[in-house]
């Protein structure tokens, strides 16, 4: 556990990192970013909380099984979203320009960008974001948990 200043600042900064990571994930088709980057940002937030509070307190709030479950769920969602378009081909973007959710079309050329476009890409971004968040956070927690100094 680090000093009180660091803990207070971690309390304040962790929601900010969460919100910014979600922004990066959901705007992956408009601005630089996407599933990998947003997931890595949120996993670094988990690493911040772990180092500020110490593993002994953190293991009641963030469990490793939840993170690995999030990883599996993200991978499963990704594969299912890829399988829905199997009528044409694997990874077919069936929602683009269809008018449904995320289905608006955009003009050709330079434009300011709209959130409600790009078909299945935001859904896949979300799935991959959940997967990378779970994976990297689980790596940090596993490496903090095991291999401690055991009293022989």
């Amino acid at each position, binding site marked *: 556990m680090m000093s009180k200043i660091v803990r207070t600042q971690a309390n304040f900064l962790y929601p900010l990192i969460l919100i910014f990571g979600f922004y990066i994930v959901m705007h992956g088709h*408009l*601005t*630089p970013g*996407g599933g*990998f980057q947003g997931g*890595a940002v949120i996993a670094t937030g988990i690493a911040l909380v772990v180092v500020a509070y110490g593993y002994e307190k953190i293991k009641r709030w963030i469990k490793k099984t939840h993170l690995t479950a999030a990883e599996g769920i993200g991978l499963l969602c990704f594969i299912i979203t890829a399988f829905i378009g199997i009528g044409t081909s694997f990874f077919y973007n069936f929602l683009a320009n269809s008018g449904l959710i995320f289905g608006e079309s955009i003009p050709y*050329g*330079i*434009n*300011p*960008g709209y959130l409600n476009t790009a078909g299945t890409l935001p859904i896949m971004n979300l799935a991959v974001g959940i997967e*990378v968040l779970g*994976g*990297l956070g689980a*790596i940090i927690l*596993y*490496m903090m948990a*095991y*291999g401690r100094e055991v009293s022989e």
Partner: protein
Amino acid sequence: MIFNLPFITVVIVIMFGLYAMVFRRNLIKVVIGLDLVESAVNLFLVSLGYVKGGVAPIYTNAPSTDMVLPTPQALTLTSIVIGVATTAMLLSFCILIYRYYGTLDTRKARRLRE
């Protein structure tokens, strides 16, 4: 003007990484060398797709439509995440070896087993 300097940098960094992987006997140093080689390959891929005067391949508020090549960037993106996963796995193996043998030196660890 700037000729081939990024490629030369890639070559030098790869040679440093190979030196660390071959001649150093500490296992964490070997992992550091592997990380250096992987970063150099990423730099090689991205600098291969650079076009002089191009902008990033994103149409949102772009200043022009003369863009750099997007495919190497996409491949590099997957390569980075794979790199951090393999680095974590190798470091966890380092922890295991240290716990079983009491050392990170490759020769000593190999000699202790026999």
